């Protein structure tokens, strides 16, 4: 039986933990709102961009298409871009991405492909380092970045395209968490090089429109494809940002609740022990008095 002082200390410590988790939850809630706004503000651009690029890509398939669209003709070397958070304490957020990336990497290695891994965010790197130390090619550190901007995405995309042009890999896939709601984030794998597009919706008006292209269809495609990679990376970063805060918020909410339960339990235990001590003392006094 722990003595009263120990119990008291324990309760105090859980109380301060609860304060911390509560504060983290509120910070995450505030950040989540901002991240969600950013994700929503970026959506129109990404949607239009993909619609136009998808239309262009569909109409200009064939051998003359740029490599970013048609690929190198092989799929031997895979680049996995694993995007995670810079911080922990956000539930299964980082692990779910790492798990998905690990499964994919193992599957590719088992089928004889070469895998290279580029990590964005410290946590994913830490988790994958143990198993795939040799496959790690680079790491992008965003810990100094407060609000993720298009520039960050462009930096990652340019690096990817540069590596692609050097022939370092054939296929690139990004891993991130898609934000569904505060309690649900979906780990997603998306192939960015060679570019893949969702099929345009049935009966979309764009299909029937014939565009004039200036300077030329190929010229536009060549300029847009690199930006397309950047846009996809940017969307992923924004979704990830919102997901991270959402995951942290619900994780911290749980932690706060657990701390509350723990405090209740400890308080009952504390009161019982105190009662026991008082009863003991009373018995001692009474039996002392009777002995006289």
């Amino acid at each position, binding site marked *: 039986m722990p003595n009263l002082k120990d119990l008291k200390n324990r309760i105090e410590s859980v109380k301060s933990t609860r304060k911390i988790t509560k504060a983290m939850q509120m910070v995450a809630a505030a950040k989540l709102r901002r991240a969600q706004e950013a994700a929503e503000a970026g959506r129109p651009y990404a949607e239009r961009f993909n619609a136009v690029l998808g239309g262009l890509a569909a109409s200009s398939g064939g051998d003359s298409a740029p490599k970013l669209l048609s690929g190198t003709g092989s799929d031997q070397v895979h680049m996995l871009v694993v995007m995670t958070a810079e911080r922990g304490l956000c539930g299964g957020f980082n692990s779910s991405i790492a798990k998905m990336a690990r499964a994919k990497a193992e599957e590719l290695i088992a089928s004889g492909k070469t895998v290279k891994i580029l990590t964005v965010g410290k946590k994913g790197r830490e988790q994958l380092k143990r198993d795939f130390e040799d496959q790690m090619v680079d790491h992008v550190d965003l810990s100094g970045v407060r609000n993720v901007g298009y520039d960050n995405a462009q930096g990652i995309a340019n690096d990817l395209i540069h590596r692609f042009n050097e022939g370092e890999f054939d296929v690139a896939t990004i891993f991130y968490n898609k934000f569904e709601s505060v309690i649900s984030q979906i780990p997603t794998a998306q192939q960015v090089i060679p570019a893949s597009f969702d099929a345009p919706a049935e009966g979309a008006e764009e299909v029937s429109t014939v*565009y004039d292209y200036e300077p030329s269809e190929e010229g536009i495609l060549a300029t847009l494809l690199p930006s397309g990679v950047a846009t996809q990376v940017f969307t992923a970063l924004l979704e990830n940002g919102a997901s991270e805060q959402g995951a942290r918020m619900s994780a911290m909410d749980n932690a706060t609740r657990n701390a509350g339960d723990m405090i209740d339990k400890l308080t009952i235990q504390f009161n019982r022990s105190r009662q026991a001590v008082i009863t003991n003392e009373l018995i001692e006094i009474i039996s002392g008095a009777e002995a006289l």
Partner: protein
Amino acid sequence: MADTMQFDLVSPERSLASLQATAVQLPGADGDLTAMPNHAPTITTLRPGIVRVESPEGNAEFAVTGGFAEVTATGTSVLAERALPTSEVTQDILDGFVSDAAAASENATAENLDELAKRTVDIAAMASELGLSVKG
């Protein structure tokens, strides 16, 4: 004939404008063009320059650093890499554009050297239109 069309200006980070316009002047990569309602469907890339919008509520100007525009009979959408109202362009921002372009030129390959050089010149041209100047 409709005398206005939908005009949207979006950058990756935010949507800057969405309004009814009578005419939009675009800095196309091959030269300026003005889109009006019932323009033939066109997709063009943009060079750094100024997008001028004329609308019944008044005119607006935006500086863009590139991107592309989609023109249809009923609307014009500009998807800019970076865009901001010309009134918000300061010397600092302009210097940022210039140094970005310069940094890009430094690791240019033979193929896109011309393109990047043109970019720098375009930014300078845009600057003089805005009454600012490019250092160096």
